Every structure is written in structure tokens, then in C-alpha cells.
């Protein structure tokens, strides 16, 4: 019944099957919207956050989706600015995933503030010294860029493309996409960085505080770097999952290979920088605050033990680097999958640690470690954008020519 909307030359499942498949994510979205409604109308008492844990699951989810959404800007940067032409075969999908991620982030931010109707104060009454202001500005601008980058793909829908104006608009936008992509890359560098700055500048919180350059702490650069490294991994991961679900090969291996190689080297250099930063912090910064490195991991409620550092840097850092950098290993499909999965987990763990641990950790000597478990409302609203993203990706895949190589890889016999 929706066949007129489906791109030419490709095969899609029946509308019924598609609808059935969407039931679970749609239910999750409804559940999440109900939770969001509760948070908006009854207030943040619906969460399990408290005065020690003012930044919690949501902020982590925010940082995590933006980090993994970094695939859009970095792939765009490689494609349009550096000129890696092969990447045109995955750029649409990267933009799509990025767009979903950034929409998620905005949605979560809108729930996370105590007075949503005053949310615009962050723009109007902006305090330029606040990292959060920088985040809000860059985030919303970059979301606009992503929307602009996504628009031509939308216009390529078979029905829309028949309208001459839309066709021309899409065409023209392709022409200047490099400008938008460059702007997006510029914005991303700053907002990924400023997200890192959010905890990095907290000089009252020795765990969060990382010294750096000028107004930017090291976390500023590390966040940008890690997002550039792990974002494409998430794009590839999503792509692989889409391939699994659709049962079709959608992107050629040489594209994966190229992106994986770049990601591997990015991740490798990032991990080196991260280790250097951790060492500098542990050896130079921490003692000036009167702490010892191990105090940040000991005495805790085992929620933030040293294991988390090993997980982040070793298991989810060095290990995927090793796989992705070595040609033989990354060409092994299960190793490749493991590596990109670990890289994505790694960046999420990093964001978790940087948000949660500064909150949980006592700074005053007579203070105590705090444990926090999110309420169902927090879980639901965190799952909401994930489910929403799945729906958007599914719809886009179904009705838009997201994968340029799909027709070639999956030839359809004309009836």
C-alpha cells in the first residue's frame, strides 16, 4: 500500500510486517512520553536524583548519544573536507544516525531541566563563561546543520523528488553541502569539546577537574577526539545492525574497512592522549587537591572501582585499537564487530565516569560516597529517544535511498 513511496529498484518487506516490527519501539516511545509527561507536569521529583546527584542518568545519556552521534560530523568531515570519496556510500546513514542522536539529546535536555518553560533563558540570558551555554548554542546550531544535511536525503524520496522545486532544492543543497559539512565539523569540535568541558571545568570537583589550555580543560579535546573516533564506530555498528535486520548487505566492505582504519587510528591516538591525561591528572593535578589517585576509586560503594578505568581504557580502548589498526584483524567480520562494539561501549563508559563519578565522590573530608539508582521514569525517558531513533531510521531506510550501494548489492528482478 505504501509502495509508491519506496525507492525505485529496491525491495522492502510488506507494510504489515513493517508495522508489526514497529510495535515494540512505538510502545517504548509511548511509555517514554508518559514518563516525560510526568516529569514535566509533576516535576523532577519523579526521578531518583537528589541534591548530591543533580547530574545523573540523563546527562550521561545526553553525553553518550552525542558522542556516538559524532559519526555524522566526522564522516562528513572526511567525505566533504578531506575528500574521502568512498564514504559517500555511508554518509547518508551517518547523517541520519547523527540526526537521531542529536534529536535525542535535545529531547532529554528538555526533560532534564526543572523549569522547561524557561529553557530559552540559556540563549537569551546566556552566560558566556558557562560550558553549558556553549553546549546549548553549538548543540542547537549543529542540530540545525544536521537537519540541513538530512533534508536532501528526505527530498530524494520518490514522491517528493517528483516536485521540481524539491528536486532542485535537493540538488543545490548537495552542491554546497561541503560548506554545511565544514560548518558542522567546526560546530562539532566545539560542542563535543564543551561537553567535555562541562565536567572538566568543575574546579571544585577534583575528579572532574582536568587542567588544560586557556579556558578549555583537557577533557574538551579528549571528548572531541573520542567522539570523532567512536562516532563512526557507532555509525558502522548501526549499519551492521541494519544489515542484520534487513538481511541485506548495504555497504561494501571497502567502505567499512576505510572507516574502521581511520577510526582505529583515531581511537589509538585518543587512547594514548587519554592515558597521558590520566597520568598527568593522577601525578600532577590530583596531589594539589590533597587527594591520592586511589582515593577516587577506593572506599567507594564499588560502583566506581578501579575496574571501571580498566574497562574504559583497556578493554574498550586498547583492545579495539589493536583490532581496528591491524588489517587482518579488522577484516575478520566478528573481530571487526567486537571492536566497534567495544569502542562504542568505551566512549559511553567514559561519559558515564565523567558524569557520575564527580557527583558520587565526596570532596569534603566528612562527606560520603553517594549511590544513585535511576527511577523508572528516568529509564523510560532515556529509552524513549533510542526507540524513537529506531523508528526514524526504519522509516528512512524504508522510504529513502539511504544506501547508494543497496541496488548494486541487492539487485531486484523486475516483475
Amino acid at each position, binding site marked *: 500500500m505504501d509502495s509508491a513511496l519506496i525507492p525505485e529498484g529496491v525491495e522492502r518487506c510488506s507494510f504489515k510486517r513493517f508495522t508489526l516490527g514497529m510495535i515494540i519501539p512505538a510502545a517504548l516511545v509511548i511509555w517514554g512520553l508518559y514518563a516525560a509527561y510526568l516529569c514535566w507536569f509533576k516535576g523532577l521529583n519523579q526521578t531518583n536524583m537528589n541534591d548530591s546527584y*543533580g547530574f545523573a542518568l540523563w546527562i550521561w545519556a545526553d553525553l553518550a548519544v552525542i558522542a556516538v552521534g559524532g559519526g555524522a560530523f566526522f564522516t562528513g568531515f572526511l567525505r566533504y573536507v578531506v575528500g574521502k570519496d568512498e564514504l559517500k556510500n555511508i554518509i547518508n546513514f551517518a547523517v541520519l544516525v547523527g540526526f537521531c542522536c542529536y534529536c535525542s539529546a535535545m529531547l532529554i535536555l528538555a526533560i532534564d531541566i*526543572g523549569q522547561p518553560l*524557561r529553557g530559552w533563558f540559556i540563549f537569551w540570558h546566556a552566560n558566556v*563563561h558557562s560550558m553549558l551555554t556553549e553546549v546549548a548554542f553549538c548543540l542547537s546550531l549543529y542540530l540545525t546543520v544536521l537537519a540541513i544535511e538530512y533534508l536532501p536525503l528526505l527530498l530524494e524520496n520518490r514522491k517528493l523528488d517528483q516536485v521540481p522545486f524539491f528536486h532542485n532544492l535537493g540538488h543545490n543543497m548537495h552542491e554546497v553541502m561541503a560548506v554545511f559539512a565544514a560548518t558542522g565539523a567546526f560546530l562539532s569540535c566545539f560542542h563535543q569539546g564543551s561537553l567535555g568541558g562541562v565536567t572538566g571545568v568543575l*574546579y*571544585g570537583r577534583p575528579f572532574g577537574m582536568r587542567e588544560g589550555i586557556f579556558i578549555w580543560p583537557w577533557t574538551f579535546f579528549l571528548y572531541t577526539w573520542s567522539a570523532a573516533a567512536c562516532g563512526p564506530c557507532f555509525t558502522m555498528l548501526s549499519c551492521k545492525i541494519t544489515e542484520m535486520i534487513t538481511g541485506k548487505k548495504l555497504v561494501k566492505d571497502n567502505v567499512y574497512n576505510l572507516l574502521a582504519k581511520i577510526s582505529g587510528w583515531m581511537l589509538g591516538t585518543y587512547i594514548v592522549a587519554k592515558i597521558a591525561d590520566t597520568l598527568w591528572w593522577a601525578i600532577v593535578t590530583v596531589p594539589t*587537591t590533597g*587527594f591520592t589517585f586511589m582515593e577516587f576509586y577506593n572506599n567507594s560503594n564499588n560502583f566506581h572501582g578501579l575496574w571501571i578505568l580498566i574497562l574504559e581504557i583497556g578493554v574498550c580502548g586498547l583492545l579495539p585499537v589493536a583490532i581496528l589498526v591491524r588489517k587482518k584483524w579488522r577484516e575478520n567480520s566478528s573481530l571487526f564487530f567486537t571492536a566497534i562494539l567495544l569502542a562504542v561501549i568505551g566512549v559511553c563508559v567514559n561519559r558515564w565516569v565523567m558524569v557520575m563519578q564527580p557527583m558520587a565522590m565526596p570532596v*569534603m573530608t566528612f562527606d560520603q560516597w553517594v549511590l544513585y539508582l535511576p527511577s523508572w521514569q528516568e529509564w523510560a525517558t532515556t529509552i524513549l529517544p533510542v526507540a524513537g531513533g529506531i523508528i526514524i531510521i526504519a522509516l528512512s531506510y524504508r522510504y529513502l535511498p539511504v544506501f547508494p550501494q543497496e541496488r548494486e548489492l541487492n539487485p531486484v528482478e523486475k516483475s
Partner: protein
Amino acid sequence: MNTEPKETRAKKFGMVIDLDKCTGCGSCMVACSSENNVPVRKDESDKLLSATWIRVYRITNGKEFPDTEICYFPRPCMHCGGKNDDGHSPCVSVCPATATDYDHSTGIVSQIYTRCFGCRYCMAACPYHARYFNWWDPIWPAKIEESLSPDVSPRMRGVVEKCSFCFHRYQKAKDKAYIEERDVEEMEYQTACTQACPSGAITFGDLDNPDHAVYTLKQDKRAFRLLERLHTNPKVYYLSARSWVKRAGDNYVSSEEPTKGPGAYKLEGHGGH
């Protein structure tokens, strides 16, 4: 010497709390709550959700019976001056909407509830847990609403609140001084906690005014500040002759001795404070 007329000279209000006098009676907490319309809830026993602008902690020296000692540690908002006392206190510098600012003419860190949109970044930034979020709509049972003071605006849910050094008392004192065409005297502007403290442990005044008691007290040998080495530059000084109490005021690596006084941890390359 400062030759400017008094009223135009910037003030730096601050507090000195003598921990050796404090008995932890909690008067300051109640006086503060009553003065500032701090909201109440049915269960106040979960301290992670209970708002007390000044909170009195109980600390011990960690020794075994019978060598144990305790000390009460009242903690209002520190009204941090920030690194180099430039007004970039941990919370002020992070507030995205300028809902909290540093008043260079009084040294007080404000919190404007009607500007705050509840992002809680300031709470994440404050190492003293001095800031409280209004998770609930403020509800005063029965007729308790009648006891709310019009001098302090009640907070709506979804915003952050904290100790203001009873700034409204300064506003009122200034009003009276205007009418009588004179300056505000030291005792005319005192915070509610200072006023209520039975043991006289809290002293309040202009830290830069040699005529004020706090000016002398902050230079006491026993003086120290909380988390001095983070360079938050608090305007609340503590006094204690007990070395373990002094040590509890900051984090020290085991080999270090907390012998340094307020302002000892200077920032490299800057004037420091």
C-alpha cells in the same frame, strides 16, 4: 588606607565560625529555615533531599573509644570568590543563564529563583553541597503559609536555592540607613544564623573592614577555610585549635601537615589570594 567615603567602598561580607564553641544545637539551621521560608516535607530524614541552607555536620576524629572526639561543622554557602577572588566562583562561572552572580560590592553570591531554569549545573560544581534543588512544589501544611516572611521570595519547584547570607537583611538595614542618612552599622546587618547561635560561635561582618570583628578573627592562628586548596576562595572562615579538626577542613595526602593558614595555597603565576 582607603580614603574613599565608606558607602562607596566595596564590602566583602563573610563569616567566621568558631568550631570549638559550636555545640551542634541546630539553632542556626532552624533560624535560617524560618528566616528564609525554606520549604518543608513530610519526611526530612533523607539528607540528600532535605534542604537546609546551613547544614551542621558532625565529624569525629576517627579514634577508638575512649579517645574519640567530635566536632560540629556548620556549613552555609561559602560565597566563594573563586580563583584570585575574581568572582568566578565554582557555581557562578557555570550557570548558563546568569541566575547566580557574584556581587563585587558585597562579595555575596546571589541566586535568583525566577531566573534559574533548574539545570543543576551549579550543584554539580559546588563541592560543599551548599545548593539545594526544589524537587517538589513547596507546600506548607495547614496555616503554616501564614508564617512565611515577605522578605524572602518563596521558591517554585524546579529551581535551585541556597544561603544568601540573609541578604534581605542588608536590604532592610540599608533602607533604614537611607532614611536616617547614615551607613549601615556592623550589628545592623547580621545573618539569622549568627543572631540565633546560642554559643556565639558565628561572627558575621565585612572581612575587609578593620572595625568589624570578623576582620580580626579571620587572622586568628586557628583560622582555616574549607577545601582551601581547591582555590574556591570561600568567605567563611573556621576556627579550631584542634589539629584534627583543621585537618578535616581539607584533603591532605598522609604525609602533609595542615599547618598553613587561609590563603596559603596560592595559584602559581597569579597574584593569588
